[in-house]
């Protein structure tokens, strides 16, 4: 005390001139202060005085205050402080001494403040409960009083001015301010906190809080209440805070003092308070946040909007002081806003240490994850939707958050919201689920499934007509469908709905087309893209999935219609088309085995398919070839139906039904060939190209009637040149799919001859030459596929073997056989060489070129690894989806690869049959022979020769006379 006194005196002298005005005010204030304990007015006055003094005293003060606070209560001191403060202003040096003074003062004030609300004002501190509500009113009252008093206002202004001056002088400026405030603390409660914000609080934690409370509760009573239910579980601290706050009021000194100490003890005064404010305000904040979820989502907008109303209130309160605050050179304004936030508690909630939130608007603190998730259960709908929206934002490209949401049981809550009647709620929930379901972490997907998310999504899809929601639902399903175990679940719950709700309407397909209206085009909407992507994924889930999709009413029809429409509009590069083609390709896989009634169409493997060879040879053959079939009434000559010109192609007769085909039967009708060929011709999308080639590959596999027709139709439609052209594609997988398709197509003898004659160079050019890879650097699988195709073509056809030799392939083959790093390539090349060598009539010319038998025999290494006859030696494991049952007669024919998943890598282009037959079967040639028993050799050769001059890869039989071209 004595020290203080000294200081006071000395400063006062020095500053006398400048400070003169203040002293008067201060004096007044002091007086009031003394009264404070009893009356609210006193607070006000105190505040004013504080401002003036505060600036001068500073950091030191704060620390001191903390300790001091508990110890001393001297109303009298206050007056002293006031006095001291005046002198302090003049010189910085004085300020130090002042500080001490301040300290003492502060203590007193602080206590007074708590006491004031509790004991003095209304409840007199006796009733804790009452204090809350009552206190609020009172405080307001107090505020009103303060404002009402002109003196107070005036004093403030002056004091502020003084401060500014002092700041200029002292570098520590801000700190000092606070210190001063503390000293005057009592008054500031409402006032000071509002204007200066955070800094103040440290000093008056309790004061402030008490002061704040009333306001908060006052302004946002409802929210607070609402919140409390929800909020508490979320923010455990909230409860404590409340206690603390309430306690101080009730019990005044002790609890209050303790809290203060801790906080003040912290390295920074501000920090402890910040924390406190967080805690205490947490409830409110959350509430506020929830209510104003938009803010969270769109921070800038929301906050702005948010503040406005509140600020307005604040401004009203502060109004009298406002000018002072803003006029202060110290740029107090900002602090002031902060402070107001804190006060506002509900609004800002902001003090969280997290730098992010603070940086934009210090008042805001983003709710943490548990809070957000808890808000999903909030009774107020906008809170739910905003929480979900915020969750979506948080989960975006952040696997960690997704995982956390899962651990915090957020997924079931979101799924539950899908059935919420309000659009914005289920929309936002769905958006969050979509993000959560995205990514490699399948656990999230499983979590959605485990709480029946898939049926819920389907329900929502059925229920809503909102495009955005539909996009979100289908997008989520697309994400979910990438995980194998969920595929069947999606099929079980959603296949027909997805088809009826999305695929069919968007494809433009009409079950019963109106004759008058022209067919509708497909709409490549996002919904359609998502849905087709989902179905594309699920269609790869094995035979049962394929069966379900094929038998799904309208699906195949709609997909085909959509693709036709795409071809018609020359719009074939988009993702939807890709998805559709991939579904078609998958559904075409193993049609010859899996389609109901397929056995009726099986051709004995030993018989040449009538469609493939017979009809093309000569028209005369037609009758004979179809003799057996004609007993089946359904067959009739399609050529006739298509008109004269087509008939002249000498096409094979296609089976036709009296009723239009529909459903899965469409998959393997020869009509689809033209569709796929159009795609192969027009599309620039590698995935689409690959899928279209894969579809042809699948359809041309197998020994059943339809695959024979398909093979012949491809030729008839001039598909071979298109496919061969694609062998030059830059895309590895396209080359692979095309090569395998050609291999399957070459099961048709005519195709084999044509391919052998005209495609050999392109095939060979895809082979690596020795160690050197060609520019394209194709993958092993592709090289193996090409080699297998060559093998297929060369086998049993010395003519083709000759063109292989002419294509300079032997050198490459030998090089691969001897030097390739890949065992599979080595073996495949070895087979080709053996097949070539088996043509005895070629050995002479081979010898002339310098080759001998050793070049065509399996190398020692390959033999060591295992002879061809040794199935297990082949690395089947690298061949996805292969069937191991070579015994199956059907596997003999080229099967296709089902394609898969969205990711390009997911597609396995490898031909099952290929593997089975070529790699596994010991005696390849015999295998082939079984498959395609040769017809009369001489006949064939003659035929072939005559054909060769014809247009490239177009069967002469199918070709019309050169078209007329007339000058005009």
């Amino acid at each position, binding site marked *: 005390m004595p020290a203080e006194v000294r200081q006071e005196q000395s400063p006062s002298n020095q500053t006398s001139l400048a400070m003169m005005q203040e002293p008067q005010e201060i004096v007044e204030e002091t007086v009031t202060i003394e009264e404070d304990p009893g009356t609210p007015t006193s607070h006000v006055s105190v505040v004013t005085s504080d401002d003036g003094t505060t600036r001068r005293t500073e950091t030191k003060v704060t620390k001191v205050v903390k300790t001091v606070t508990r110890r001393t209560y001297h109303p009298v001191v206050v007056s002293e402080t006031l006095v001291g403060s005046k002198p302090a202003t003049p010189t910085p040096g004085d300020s130090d001494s002042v500080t001490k003074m301040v300290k003492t003062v502060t203590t007193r004030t602080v206590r007074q403040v708590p006491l004031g609300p509790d004991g003095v004002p209304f409840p007199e501190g006796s009733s804790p409960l009452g204090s809350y509500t009552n206190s609020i009113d009172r405080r307001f009252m107090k505020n009103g009083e303060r404002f009402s008093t002109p003196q107070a206002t005036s004093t403030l202004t002056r004091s502020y001015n003084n401060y500014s001056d002092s700041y200029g002088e002292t570098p520590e400026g801000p700190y000092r301010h606070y210190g001063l405030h503390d000293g005057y603390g009592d008054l500031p409660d409402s006032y000071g906190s509002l204007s200066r914000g955070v800094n103040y609080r440290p000093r008056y934690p309790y004061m402030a809080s008490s002061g704040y409370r009333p306001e908060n509760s006052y302004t946002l009573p409802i929210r607070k209440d609402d919140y409390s239910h929800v909020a508490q579980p979320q923010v455990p601290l909230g409860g404590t805070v409340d206690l603390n706050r309430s306690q101080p009021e009730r019990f005044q000194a002790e609890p209050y003092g303790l809290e203060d100490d801790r906080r003040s003890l912290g390295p920074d005064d501000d920090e402890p308070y910040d924390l406190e404010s967080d805690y205490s305000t947490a409830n409110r904040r959350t509430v506020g946040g929830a209510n104003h979820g938009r803010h969270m989502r769109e921070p800038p907008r929301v906050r702005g909007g948010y503040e406005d109303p509140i600020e307005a209130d604040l401004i009203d309160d502060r109004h009298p002081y406002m000018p002072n605050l803003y006029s202060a050179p110290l740029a107090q304004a900002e602090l002031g806003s902060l402070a107001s936030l804190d006060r506002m508690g509900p609004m800002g909630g902001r003090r969280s240490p997290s730098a992010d939130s603070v940086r934009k608007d210090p008042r805001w603190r983003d709710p943490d994850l548990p809070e957000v998730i808890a808000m999903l259960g909030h009774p107020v709908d906008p809170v739910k939707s905003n929480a979900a929206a915020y969750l979506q934002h948080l989960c975006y490209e952040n696997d960690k958050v997704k995982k956390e949401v899962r651990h915090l049981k957020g997924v079931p809550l979101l799924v539950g919201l899908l059935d919420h009647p309000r659009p914005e709620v289920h929309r936002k929930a769905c958006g969050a689920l979509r993000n959560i379901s995205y990514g490699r972490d399948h656990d999230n997907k499983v979590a959605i499934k485990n709480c029946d998310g898939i049926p819920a999504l389907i329900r929502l899809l059925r229920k809503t007509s909102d495009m955005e929601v539909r996009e979100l639902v289908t997008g989520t399903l697309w994400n979910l469908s990438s995980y194998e175990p969920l595929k069947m679940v999606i099929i079980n719950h959603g296949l027909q709905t997805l088809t009826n709700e999305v695929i069919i309407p968007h494809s433009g397909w009409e079950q019963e087309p109106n004759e008058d209206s022209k067919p509708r085009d497909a709409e490549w909407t996002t919904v359609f893209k998502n849905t087709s992507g989902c179905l594309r994924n699920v269609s790869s889930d094995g035979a049962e999935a394929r069966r379900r999709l094929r038998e799904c009413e309208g699906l195949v029809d709609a997909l085909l219609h959509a693709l036709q429409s795409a071809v018609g509009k020359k719009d074939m590069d988009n993702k939807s088309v890709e998805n559709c083609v991939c579904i078609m390709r998958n559904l075409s896989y193993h049609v010859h085995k899996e389609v109901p009634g397929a056995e009726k169409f099986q051709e004995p493997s030993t018989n040449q398919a009538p469609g493939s060879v017979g009809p093309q040879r000569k028209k005369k053959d037609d009758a004979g070839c179809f003799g057996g079939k004609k007993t089946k009434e359904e067959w009739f000559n399609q050529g006739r139906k298509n008109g004269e010109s087509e008939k002249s192609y000498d096409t094979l007769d296609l089976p036709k039904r009296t009723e239009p085909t529909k459903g899965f039967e469409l998959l393997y009708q020869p009509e689809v060939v033209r569709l796929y060929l159009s795609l192969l011709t027009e599309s620039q999308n590698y995935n689409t190209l690959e899928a279209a080639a894969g579809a042809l590959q699948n359809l041309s596999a197998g020994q059943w009637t339809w695959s024979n027709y398909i093979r012949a139709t491809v030729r008839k439609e001039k598909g071979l040149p298109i496919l061969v052209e694609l062998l030059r594609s830059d895309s590895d997988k396209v080359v692979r799919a095309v090569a395998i398709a050609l291999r399957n197509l070459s099961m048709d003898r005519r195709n084999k001859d044509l391919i052998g004659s005209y495609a050999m160079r392109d095939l060979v050019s895809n082979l690596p030459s020795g160690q050197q890879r060609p520019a394209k650097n194709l993958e092993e699988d592709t090289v193996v596929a090409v080699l297998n195709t060559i093998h297929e073509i060369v086998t049993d056809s010395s003519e083709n073997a000759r063109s292989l030799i002419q294509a300079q392939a032997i050198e490459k083959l030998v090089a691969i056989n001897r030097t390739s790093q890949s065992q599979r390539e080595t073996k495949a090349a070895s087979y080709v060489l053996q097949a070539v060598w088996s043509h005895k009539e070629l050995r002479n010319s081979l010898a002339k070129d310098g080759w001998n038998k050793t070049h065509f025999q399996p190398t020692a290494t390959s033999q060591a690894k295992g002879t061809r006859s040794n199935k297990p030696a082949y690395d089947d494991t690298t061949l996805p989806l292969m069937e191991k049952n070579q015994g199956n007669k059907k596997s003999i024919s080229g099967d296709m690869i089902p394609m898969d998943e969205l990711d390009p890598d997911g597609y396995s282009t490898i031909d099952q049959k290929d593997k089975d037959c070529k790699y596994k079967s010991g005696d390849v040639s015999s295998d082939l022979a079984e498959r395609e028993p040769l017809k009369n050799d001489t006949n064939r050769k003659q035929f072939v020769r005559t054909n060769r001059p014809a247009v490239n890869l177009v069967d002469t039989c199918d*070709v019309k006379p050169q078209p*007329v*071209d007339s000058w*005009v």
Partner: protein
Amino acid sequence: MSFIPGQPVTAVVQRIEICKLRQCDNLILGFSIGGGIDQDPGQNPFSEDKTDKGIYVTRVSKGGPAEAAGLMIGDKIMQVNGWDMTMVTHDQARKRLTKKNEDVVRLLVTRKSLEDAVRNAMV
């Protein structure tokens, strides 16, 4: 330009007016046509849809009236003086173009570049 049977065909067309060049008794347009419903559409190197049996410009003589008028190889002729050319035989088309009593033929033609241009413009 492709079509679906039974569906109206829409195409971006360009009007081309060719004044025939008289050489002695002959009126010359200076281009040749291919295609027609009696021809094999598959051999038409210009059509995108190989089932298109329309009439296509197969050659254009250098410096001839057709070239001057802007006709290009590969153009598909949709109409000649208002007559449809998409469903005619080759000979019908030829006759329609070579009427002795007409000095001017007005063509509607379409070509891929036109469609592309329009599509791009719409984008």
